[in-house]
């Protein structure tokens, strides 16, 4: 078969393919809108069901940056852990309130994170009056790790990180998740040792961190949660009942057990989506947060460990998807800013309904989009293929004509395949752009523009999934085309007679 013949066949199919491209685009948009609406409905129904059965409690622990110290050298770590757990348990069951610092900055995802799921960092700043020295990382063996640091110059920043549901490995439904592999749309992530957390107080750590500090499954990390007794005055609580040291600190230490080690957050392509709502959010100790948390002047590069930045026990359902997330975040800021104390470096935030509200709103909107995105991108793969199969079926007589005229099946297949790829890619690209515009317009109706952009971006599968979608589509199209061309039945020509 010479080139002119191939070109002739290709030319014919290209001319016909314009119609296919149009159909692709229309189909994509229709399916995207339908799946988006379906996602909203599904999530809405689920929220409504769960809202009726869950309490409105929320516990929020805020941890501060850890620095090594020699404190544990004189304290039995086992005794410390037991005491810590006891105190921690007592605190959780008590009445909670917010101990706000003096000022809070809300750093939005768009300021510093590219192409990742939303991470909201609320940075609260407070002046220090004296050095900060107490924080530890130890193993079961009681060996302190890390390096010492002069804490007199330590930054007076407490960081609270809110992570959306879409952040994998941070978010599990403990009632549903039991294995050691987390499945997701585009891949899975597995623990290379141990398992994923299933209870509060359990963490997984990255391999990098594990290797750097020698962490292994079963190790405990002690995290300082101590706060200044003066903070309790605003609550009318007698701090001395909790035990106050000579510096006026109520010493609280949390023990986190390392139950697993992971290689990365993502699956084979680095991004994952999970549907489940979280009952627990577990911290993942990973240096990948450095660019986020480092903006406030922090850096992990000196060997510091940030053992836990947030542990949330969430079960409330008091939220409204129609409320602006920014407004909710502002509520947090206002609430935190009301406190006039703010002269200590230790803070424990507990039972903040405002924060849980923010989180729930974020979860709801974000998960709606993820449902929509997953459905729509699934449709991107399958709809063109179904359409393509139908077109091949209906164009059988034309294809057989080529055979009648003596064209080789390989040339026909090659032409069909190239046309499909062109049509698919053009259709997907245009459909993708239009769908983003559509999504933005839709989300802007319930959120302000800036947050709408963030939420829409959070549902963006990114280039890697797009590449996977296209590759999968092309591969399947090749298979379908190959099967079709090789199964063209010339007897179809005769059936009008027979």
């Amino acid at each position: 078969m010479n080139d002119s013949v191939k070109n002739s066949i290709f030319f014919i199919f290209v001319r016909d393919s314009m119609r296919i491209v149009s159909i692709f685009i229309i189909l994509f948009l229709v399916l995207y809108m339908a799946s988006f609406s379906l996602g909203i409905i599904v999530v809405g129904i689920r929220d409504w069901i769960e809202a009726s059965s869950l309490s409105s409690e929320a516990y929020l622990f805020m941890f501060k940056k850890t620095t090594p110290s020699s404190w544990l050298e004189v304290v039995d770590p086992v005794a410390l852990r037991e005491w810590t757990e006891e105190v921690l348990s007592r605190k959780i069951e008590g009445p909670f309130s917010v101990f706000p610092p003096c000022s809070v900055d809300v750093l939005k995802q768009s300021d510093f994170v590219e192409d990742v799921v939303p991470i909201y960092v609320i940075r609260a700043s407070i002046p220090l009056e004296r050095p900060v020295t107490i924080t530890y990382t130890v193993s079961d063996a009681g060996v302190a790790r890390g390096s010492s640091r002069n804490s007199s110059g330590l930054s007076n920043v407490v960081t609270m990180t809110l992570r959306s549901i879409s952040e994998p490995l941070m978010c599990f439904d403990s009632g549903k998740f039991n294995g050691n592999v987390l499945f997701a749309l585009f891949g899975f992530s597995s623990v290379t040792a141990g398992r994923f957390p299933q209870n509060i107080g359990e963490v997984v750590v990255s391999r990098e961190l594990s290797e750097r500090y020698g962490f292994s499954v079963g190790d405990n990390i002690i995290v300082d949660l101590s706060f200044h007794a003066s903070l309790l005055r605003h609550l009318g609580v007698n701090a001395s009942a909790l035990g106050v040291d000579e510096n006026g600190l109520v010493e609280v230490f949390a023990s986190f057990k390392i139950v697993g080690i992971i290689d990365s957050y993502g699956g084979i392509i680095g991004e994952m989506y999970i549907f489940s709502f979280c009952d627990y959010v577990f911290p993942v100790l990973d240096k990948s947060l450095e660019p986020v948390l480092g903006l406030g002047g922090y850096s992990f590069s000196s060997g510091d460990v940030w053992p836990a930045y947030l542990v949330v026990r969430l079960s409330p359902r008091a939220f409204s998807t129609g409320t602006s997330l920014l407004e909710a975040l502002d509520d947090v800021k206002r609430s935190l800013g009301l406190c006039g104390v703010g002269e200590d470096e230790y803070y424990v935030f507990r039972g903040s309904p405002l924060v849980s509200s923010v989180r729930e709103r974020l979860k709801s909107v974000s998960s709606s989009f993820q449902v929509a995105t997953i459905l729509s991108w699934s449709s991107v793969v399958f709809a063109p293929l179904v359409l393509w199969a139908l077109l091949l079926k209906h164009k059988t007589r034309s294809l057989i004509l080529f055979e009648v005229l003596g064209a080789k099946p390989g040339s026909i297949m090659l032409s069909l395949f190239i046309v499909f790829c062109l049509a698919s890619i053009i259709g997907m690209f245009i459909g993708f752009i239009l769908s983003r515009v559509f999504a933005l317009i839709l989300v802007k109706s319930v959120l302000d523009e800036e947050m709408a952009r963030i939420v829409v971006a959070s549902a963006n599968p990114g280039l890697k999934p797009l590449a996977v979608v296209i590759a999968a589509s092309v591969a399947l199209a090749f298979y379908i085309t190959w099967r079709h061309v090789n199964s063209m039945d010339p007897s179809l020509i005769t059936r009008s007679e027979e």
Partner: protein
Amino acid sequence: MPIVFARDLSKYIRWKCIFSNLSFTVEKGNTVLVVGPNGSGKTTLLTLLALLSRPTSGVLRVFNVDASSVGRSGAASVRAKRIGYSLQVPVFFENLSLLDNVVLAGVLGGLSPREAKSRAEELLDLVGLRHKKDGKAGRLSGGERKRADIVRALLKEPELLLLDEPFSMLDPEGVDAVKLMLRDYLEKGGTLVVAAPREIDLFKWDLTIELRGCSPA
């Protein structure tokens, strides 16, 4: 060496017997008429001769190529170079011009585009379609499509020409034009196989194959 050799040829489509135990030989320059009622398998036989399908049983060799074992690419090569086939219901690439449709067949048959175009215009002129050569094939009437289809089959001057009910849609002028082309083709030594539902007084047939369904096993 005969152009077509068939012995005990049978064809089933989805367990339905179309015909069975056909034996015949077609030599170069022969005229062959395949007759039979609707559904008797005339078109099926032509698709076998065109190497578009395989016999269920028996022996069929076309240009000494075994129809039972030849691959799709091998069959395509034989068809492209040596066989012209006009379908019972003509199929065109509807969005292409009539001329492009015919030229494409010539190019697939090994003609250069220039040669194919020149010859296509000549033949289309012969059947009264020259004025329609630049219009889309999809706009042709039934009779015009039939004439154009025969032109397309003849363009590469195949050694074996298979025509499936060539006169079914033609008006008298069309029939005369096609007859003229076919006579010219036969004078040049071509081999013609025509399928029709009844006897047609067109040529002196060297062989008539009557299809009457399957013989009892």
